[in-house]
């Protein structure tokens, strides 16, 4: 307590008037300038009063739809939907039906971001930057399917938005669709060889050819 009292007494008695007069008054202009500067800097800060605005993730792809159309027969759709993106709900994968044996299908793939309304079509983005993307189609050993690319980027390397899927004899297996961003192009057609980063990976198990 004594210390506080002494400080107070000291402050009142001893802060020299000279100090107040010379230092503060003389530099009042500078102090004010500094203060103004500080206020200016502060008020220039982004105004974020009120509720922050909601962000609908723009970088996310929620939906992959591969439509396989044969010359004659029924269309088969492979659909992967992950409505909460990186959230805990796993993607829901559906295959609309079985593929017919020894048939050629023309394949057409669409990538969508359905968190936005209306849904954003990301396929066009992939198309516009074809040299930086490639869609890979991989069938497991048991599944008699071969995929051929019908489209290329500006350098003549495969892109994979337009494909042909040719089925062989009746079989069952896994069919995987992978969209890679900035893979090495050209590559050996394997994921390991292509590198880059995965934008989409949809693994359709139990694809049947009858």
């Amino acid at each position, binding site marked *: 307590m004594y210390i506080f009292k002494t400080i107070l007494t000291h*402050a009142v008695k001893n802060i020299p008037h000279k100090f107040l007069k010379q230092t503060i008054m003389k*530099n009042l202009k500078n102090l004010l300038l500094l203060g103004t500067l500080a206020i200016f*800097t502060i008020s220039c800060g*982004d105004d974020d009063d009120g509720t922050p605005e909601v962000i609908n993730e723009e970088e996310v792809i929620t939906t992959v739809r591969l439509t396989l159309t044969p010359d004659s027969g029924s269309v088969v759709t492979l659909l992967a939907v992950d409505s909460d993106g990186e959230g805990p709900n796993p993607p829901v994968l559906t295959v609309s039906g079985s593929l017919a044996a020894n048939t050629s299908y023309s394949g057409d793939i669409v990538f969508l971001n359905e968190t936005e309304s209306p849904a954003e079509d990301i396929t066009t983005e992939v198309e516009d930057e074809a040299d930086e993307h490639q869609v890979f189609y*991989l069938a497991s050993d048991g599944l008699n399917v071969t995929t051929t690319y019908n489209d290329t980027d500006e350098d003549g390397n495969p892109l994979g938005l337009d494909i042909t899927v040719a089925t062989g004899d009746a079989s069952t297996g896994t069919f995987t669709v992978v969209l890679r961003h900035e893979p090495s192009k050209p590559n050996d057609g394997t994921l390991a060889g292509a590198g880059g980063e*995965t934008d989409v990976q949809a693994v359709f198990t139990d694809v049947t050819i009858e």
Partner: protein
Amino acid sequence: MKFYFLLGALLWSTLGFTQNCTYTLSGYVIDLHDQSTLNQATIIVAGSEEAVTTDTDGKYIITGLCEATYTLQVSHPACETQAVRVTVRGNTTRNINMEHHLESLGDVQVTGHAHELKSKTGTETIVDHQILESSSAASLGDALRQLSGVSSLNTGNTVVKPVIQGLHSSRVVLITDGTRLQDQEWGAEHAPNIDVNAAGEVTVIKGAAGLQYGGDAIGGTIVIEPETIPVKDTLYGRTIVTGASNGRGGSITSSLTKSFNNGWYGGVNGTYKRFGDFETPDYILSNTAMSEKDVALRVGVNRYRFGIEGSYSIFDKESGILRSSHLGGAEDLVVAINSDEPFVVNDFTYEINQPRQDVRHQIAKLNGLYRFENLGKLTAQVDYQRNNRLEFDIRRDSEDTRPSIDLQLETFTATADFDYTADNTVTAKFGVLGRYREHFPDPITGVRRLIPDYEAFDFGVYALGSKQLNQWTFEGGARFDYNQINAEKFYLTSVWEERSFDQSFPEFEVEEIGNQIFTRPEFSYSNFSATAGVGYDFDGDYSLSANYALASRAPNVSELFSDGLHQSAARIELGDLSFNQEVAHKFSLNFTRTEENWQFAIAPFASFINDFILIEPTDLRQTIRGNFQVWEYRQTEARLLGFDIDNEVRLRENLTLKNQFSLVKGQDLTLDDALINMPATNTRNSITYSLPEVSNLRFMLESNYVFRQNEFPDNNFEITLPATDDQVVVDVSTPPDAYHLINFRGDIDFALGNKSNLNLGLMVNNMFNTSYREYLNRQRYFADDLGRNVLLQIKINY
């Protein structure tokens, strides 16, 4: 007020009539710093030119004075001459305070100054001026990790975060020129926003003994102080130019200081750094170029009794992040880990592309101090900090130049501290602090916010003191902090429900918007921290001290609010709203020998941390982008044990051996397993040969051996590769092998006229171009560490 002046003037003039010139004026001339008396001070009475000198006790007597106001000119060999006005009324006693300059301050080439211990019994280390200067082109983290017990958590080689005895990020408090740095230090890949060249002296307190700086420094405190500016008429400066072979770049830093006899001073410091892609022994690390621009200004006045200083600094750094470290899911990680070389190795370039970080930190500060005679020093400070952090990821659309993370943290702080200095054997310090922080993540990114909008209020009060009794020193202190945080955050509804926050925190829910839920989490924490210590000076050159520090840290924003994909780590990170604060008990011992030819220090410690917050993998999550490892924050009981050894032996007049050894072992007591990311044991040994007669020529050869970290938790996980259906293990745990680096440093002085000098230095780091990976480098999965680096440095003092 005016009335009293008039009254005073009237009285004085009345008294003037009875002129009686037989009075004496006496007193002592006292050094303001330590209250010691000054002998050989000369006092001249203006007008009469009568001069007296103080005696051996510092006492003076002037006789034959009238009742009047006199001006005395007081001078002393070690002090600046000053004028004092004294009113004599009868026999008058008046003590005169003078500021006694330390000899080193008058020296233009400041090689170090009297160091004031930040903690009397805690373990602390001072960073050598030479280390700071030789790290001029690198970073603060690079300078600090040359100390025993300090290592670094790196993201590449330009983002270097200090680790003190195994702890980092929010557990390390950084104080720069009296201001606690608020630069989003919670992030493991966020390096301190500090220009190493603006530091005059850096002290590292290992542990929470520095209560005046904060009660949450469970790891430690790094105190950065600028150069002390002498009170005299002088103009001086320093320029350091460094060129480096690795990165094919360099840095230039210049400082200029002007001070006047009347106490006014001003200083400016500027740094520019530019590097291209760095290289390992075998390949180029593509997209690791960096650029840094820093400026610091200060203007102030330092009178005997009071001082005011205003300062402003800006730090602006842009660093590329290794291109190959940007990944999709776990499948990409497997490929990257199993590949010896990074996927992307392009030609050397100075360009900085995505992914990259662009950080800017500004500090504006106003500080005042007032000294009370025979009592102490009162300091008050207000400061404003603004941190802008932009992180640019690779976007699907390469035309899209928006950052993926755009954070702005503004901090306003006001502090007042009182330092009791009247008794040489006692130190006492107390202070209060108020702080307001506002965080704004800009929604223009189109990417969900990593850290939410929040406002935080902090209030702190502390008292700290020590007493010296013969050979004993006792120290004790306590601090209380209150933290409040009010956040506004959107959760994915699926995350909110999966984490059961809808049951535990329904009061935070505001509304549901699409697949997200808007919440207002509000928390407050009351933290208590304390320290107690005792030291004993043995006769001769030995001393021993023991310290206990209790520290409490409220969970940081990342630990509370993380809820999604952390792109730069290619993992999903989940925080927990139910965390309470961490409480650490640290016991440290410090045994030192300070003899001229053999200096030795050993500092063992044991730290027990309750509710230690750590992040660890728990799960694998399927998303449409593939599988991502889920890392969840959790609280556990942790124990850290270790010791640091410093040894310096002068074999001959010009031959010095130095040895450092640091060991830390971290254990998760709940799981009975090792803690993740503990620095490996390491030892640094050097031999220095100097030839003072040949222009101060010095050579140093240094060996830095880092052991393999053999204690680590197994966080490996298995995934199925889509192409081949193979089950593979993703090895994210196994630390890299031990490594041994040899560094060389040589320098020589040249005089340039009688006031300036030039120092030419040559440094070679990793002399044998050894390929290695460091456990605490987040890019160790993707690429080797730096290869040989030859640096040429020119330093001019003028």
